[in-house]
């Protein structure tokens, strides 16, 4: 499966890029995070504390145990601060 992964705010800064396309066999967000963490230190650092992160699947907020089947776009970011 091919996924577009987007990063925002300090997650983007730690990863060092705003988006990338990855090929993965992960079936859930949590599995995808494990794959990313294993890649390089900057990923391990960005994903070190999942409680400080939020995830959106195809632009809707989701949980980390959500399945990735049918998903095109995954975004990781800190809690939002709008308004």
């Amino acid at each position, binding site marked *: 499966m091919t996924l577009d992964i987007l990063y925002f705010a300090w997650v983007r800064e730690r990863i060092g890029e705003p988006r990338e396309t990855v090929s993965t066999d992960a079936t859930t967000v949590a599995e995808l995070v494990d794959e990313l963490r294993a890649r390089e230190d900057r990923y391990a650092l960005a994903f070190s504390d999942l409680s400080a992160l939020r995830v*959106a699947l195809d*632009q809707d907020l989701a949980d980390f145990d959500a399945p990735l089947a049918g998903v095109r776009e995954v*975004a990781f970011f*800190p809690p*939002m*601060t709008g*308004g």
Partner: protein
Amino acid sequence: MDIRVQDAPFDYGQECAGFGADRSDIGAIVTFCGIVRDEHSTLQAMQIEHYPGMTERALHKIASEAQARWSLSDCLIIHRFGRLKPGEKIMMVATAARHRADAFAAADFLMDYLKSRAPFWKKEFSGEGAEWVAAKDADEDALKRW
């Protein structure tokens, strides 16, 4: 329903003047405006990042939820992104209803959800460096009111 996500400044006074102006069924208008605050004269700028696409989607969802919960005649959300200076207006919401209770509750609700469920992130720049604004527990807790 009018939802705008934009880099450019907006004219709060003019938006207030025009909102609901052509309707005869409106008895109450509530507006909220969020401003870049600089209490200690240390802030140089605020950078607002957002998630294009999801932002518009989230704002429409929040506004639709408000219209489903309260009897609203109209509803406006404007939210800026990009680099803002102290004193600049970040965003506004406006709600119009027959009665004031609906207009107040809906505006309050919109702000609570915008704060924690719309994909914006703020970074503050001062002489001492730059820092991402952290989400507050109180803002997440505020959602439980609804």
